């Protein structure tokens, strides 16, 4: 894109002030790459924490009857598994990628607010500790499902207050992170990097950041009302005092639906970077990708009611939310078609990032289809709060968000570390993940159609067979993730030097203008993008 050579930038490693080392380096760092690394390792740790909870759940559900955990603890496991995976694993992992990539992809030296960046990360850690520690307080961790519906949540003990505090802290961190990302993208782009030249990962994060700023305060408001209902005698959600439990659901899902897009939009960006790189062909329909992302984000604000079809909204409410939800299929379809058109007549190779991206397209689309089924109000009513819904959102969040995180991790590991990961091990990780994932979650569609409710520790005998398969798949999937951990560590320690651009088709600034590993300070002089 510009004339500067990769070697040129290596000399920009800044020695003007000394780098602290050891713990101090990480505690006080304001470097976007260090902070990105912190976010990514943190997310990985939380991913395994939430994963252990998931495996406990699946162990209990391996057969009917109660074998391992009591129902109260089971409910805590489902609740905290959800909260940890959403707020501790997926979201911080995307922020980690944003930190690493956005400055490099737009040709900026760092994020706009480096000190706030540090604070954003270090707020996440105590929040996670609060969440996990709530297992060890009297009464056990929150056991109301991650949606925290009152009045059930009002009944529980101090763990709820810890959860509310954790949500507040995470919200503050997300808002600061978003302000940082928006400011960076809008102000620090290199000369010539117009908005419509930005890589799609940058675009999707720009839109995601706006979503975060719009909805995190809404969630904060909802949990604050819970807190005052619990301790200060208010009745926001208590009918006896003139409140309404349904109002919490409306407020929660006004946050909750955009939240799902917060987790999936950056995934669209990653896949839109990887498919063209390995098809050796430019992304098809760049402009329509940007418009589709924006449409999805806007629509996400008017579909929250589809989580509430069984609340007893009036017919007009049900119909509005059904139509609006169905509409989302249109821009989402455009994206899938564009990715396939990008692959069409390309010259494809299938390294691990490409495999995970193709897995993403196939399985995310299955999640999209089941979302379409759920959008049809009458059909939703018969499978609402069943395992069908569990299957649906795991197809979107695991084979959607998580698979693209893996795709991104394998794709950029050479740039982050300067070393090549082990390709065969990566492929093994992919295949075990895909197989385990589908054995775990595909049968859950059938369980839901047959009427098995979610969040139950024990079930009727006709659900036994599919649950057994689901548990087997979950264990295959869960243990395969250790391969990823091993591969990352082995990659960092190995001596396989990665080329500056190990991928033939990758053409964004971090590949074309920076060496591998990317220097501690990059683009102190902005590149010129033509």
């Amino acid at each position, binding site marked *: 894109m510009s004339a500067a050579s990769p070697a040129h930038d290596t000399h920009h490693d800044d020695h003007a002030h000394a780098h602290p080392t050891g713990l101090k380096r990480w505690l006080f760092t304001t470097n976007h790459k260090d902070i990105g690394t912190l976010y990514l390792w943190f997310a990985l740790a939380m991913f395994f924490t939430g994963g252990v909870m998931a495996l406990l759940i699946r162990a209990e559900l391996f057969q*009917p*009857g109660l074998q391992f955990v009591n*129902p109260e603890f089971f*409910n805590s496991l489902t609740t905290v598994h959800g909260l940890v995976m959403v707020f501790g694993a997926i979201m911080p992992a995307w922020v980690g990628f944003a930190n690493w990539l956005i400055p490099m992809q737009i040709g900026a030296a760092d994020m706009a607010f480096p000190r706030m960046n540090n604070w954003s990360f270090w707020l996440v850690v105590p929040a996670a500790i609060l969440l996990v520690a709530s297992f060890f307080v*009297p009464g056990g961790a929150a056991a109301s*499902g991650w949606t925290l*519906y009152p*009045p*059930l949540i*009002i*009944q*529980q*003990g101090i763990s709820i207050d810890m959860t509310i505090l954790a949500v507040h802290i995470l919200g503050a961190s997300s808002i600061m992170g978003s302000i940082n990302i928006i400011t960076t993208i809008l102000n620090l782009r290199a000369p010539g990097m117009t908005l419509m030249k930005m890589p799609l990962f940058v675009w999707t994060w720009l839109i995601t950041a706006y979503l975060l700023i719009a909805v995190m305060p809404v969630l904060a408001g909802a949990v604050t009302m819970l807190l005052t209902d619990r301790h200060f005698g208010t009745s926001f959600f208590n*009918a*006896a005092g003139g409140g309404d*439990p349904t109002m919490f659901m409306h407020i929660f899902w006004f946050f909750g639906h955009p939240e799902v897009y917060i987790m999936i939009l950056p995934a669209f960006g990653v896949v839109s970077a990887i498919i063209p790189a390995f*098809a050796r*062909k*430019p992304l098809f329909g760049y402009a329509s990708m940007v418009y589709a992302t924006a449409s999805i984000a806007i629509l996400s604000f008017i579909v929250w009611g589809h989580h509430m079809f*069984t*609340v*007893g909204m*009036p*017919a007009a409410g*049900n*119909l509005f939310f*059904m*139509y609006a939800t169905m509409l989302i299929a*249109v821009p989402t379809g455009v994206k899938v078609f564009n990715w*396939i*058109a990008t*692959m*069409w*007549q*390309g*010259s*494809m190779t299938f390294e691990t990032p490409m495999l995970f991206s193709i897995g993403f397209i*196939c399985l995310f*689309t*299955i999640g999209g289809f089941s979302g379409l*089924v759920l959008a*049809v*109000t*009458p*059909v939703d*009513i*018969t499978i609402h709060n*069943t395992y069908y819904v569990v299957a649906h959102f795991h197809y979107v969040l695991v084979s959607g968000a998580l698979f693209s995180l893996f795709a991104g991790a394998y794709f950029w590991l050479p740039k982050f570390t300067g070393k090549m990961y082990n390709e065969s091990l990566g492929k093994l990780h992919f295949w075990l993940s895909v197989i385990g994932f589908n054995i775990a979650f595909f049968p859950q569609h*059938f369980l839901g*159609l047959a*009427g098995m*409710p*979610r969040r*139950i*520790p024990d*079930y*009727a*005998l006709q659900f036994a*067979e*599919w649950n057994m398969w689901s548990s087997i798949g979950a264990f295959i999937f869960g243990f395969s993730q250790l391969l990823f951990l091993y591969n990352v560590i082995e990659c960092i320690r190995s001596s396989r030097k990665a080329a500056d651009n190990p991928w033939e088709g990758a053409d964004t600034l971090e590949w074309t203008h920076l060496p591998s590993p990317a220097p501690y300070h990059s683009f102190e002089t902005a590149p010129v993008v033509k």
Partner: protein
Amino acid sequence: MGLDMIRKAFRNAALAAALAAGASANAAYDVDILPPASPIAQQIYDLHWAIMWVCIVIFFLVFGAMFYSILKHRKSVGAKAAHFHENTTVEVIWTVIPFLILVGMAYPATKTVLDMKDASNPDLTIKVTAFQWAWEYDYLQDGVKFNSLLATPRSQIEEWERKGEQKNPHYLLEVDKPMVVPAGKKVRLLITSNDVIHGWYVPQLGINQYGIPGFVKDTWFKADKPGLYRGQCSQICGKEHGYMPIVVVAKAPEEYAAWVKEQKANSPQAAAPAQVAVAAAAPAAAEDPNKKWSLDELKAAGEKVYAANCAACHQPTGKGMPPAFPALDGSKVVNGPKAAQLALVLGGKQGTAMASFARLSDSELAGVITYTRNSWGNKTGEAIQPAEVKAARK
């Protein structure tokens, strides 16, 4: 209809695949919505298959193209990359066609939504009240009212220490007293809750409706023919959420009438519809309210009530699961003045899982309170008479 045949073929194929996977002869590898048993459920069933066919066809078209591309356009077979990166015509087509398909889907779905919401002119209205963790059914016209609880014994459920006993065929989906309705009649349900949000969910009747404390929501169903339909609570409602089944028995109208008569005979207080309002304030008690019971009689009756209503939290041993569910054995309340315990059981305790149990009859409450005051380590030696409970309700 041709579509039905394809559906059957699809189901058989899935079944065959399941069998091939090593399923035992009676294993349940269901892959479809349960057979519908009401007009609405039938519409839901058809809508589901309509949208599924749309999805299946699109899936094979789109991924057929993708896998063709993966096979043919790979570098290892010498494919050279083309350079096109946009085509307005194609992009407009694949925006407009999905939109039109969705409009086609929305039309029948809208009709069903409107049908579901039309609870007017019912033949019968039943008020459903959810509790942690049971259902109360109140037949507003017929003057019948009762609780419906899980009938599966705990010994089949809990396997922490050893393998549980042989499980009943309808393990966790069986209740002591099912909801009985006349088949072929429009039954309107008024659904609410006494404590937290629950979900009254019977898939074969096409109903899934939250019960929300402080609000009454209505829905309706018409069972096509006599039969038995099972369901469960669909919204997490605390630790016993998985143990809150629903059974609906649809009987021929004559048999239903006979059932109502029988229920009234067993429940004199609710005999006349005019008394329904009174009955709501003072739930049915078959016995003479002024009868004096002996301590042992009360204890024996109370033990059953305790097992059905209290043991899930306070445990059969009375040790509870502190701190959420305090022990009754040695409890200050249970060993203190009986009026205070009575007030707590009748009124519940705000901000905790302890709900009001005013829905139980005077004799049931007298029994269970006497039982707790004279069991395990508790030896107050006091009996509480139904008349005292009645007086305390004021």
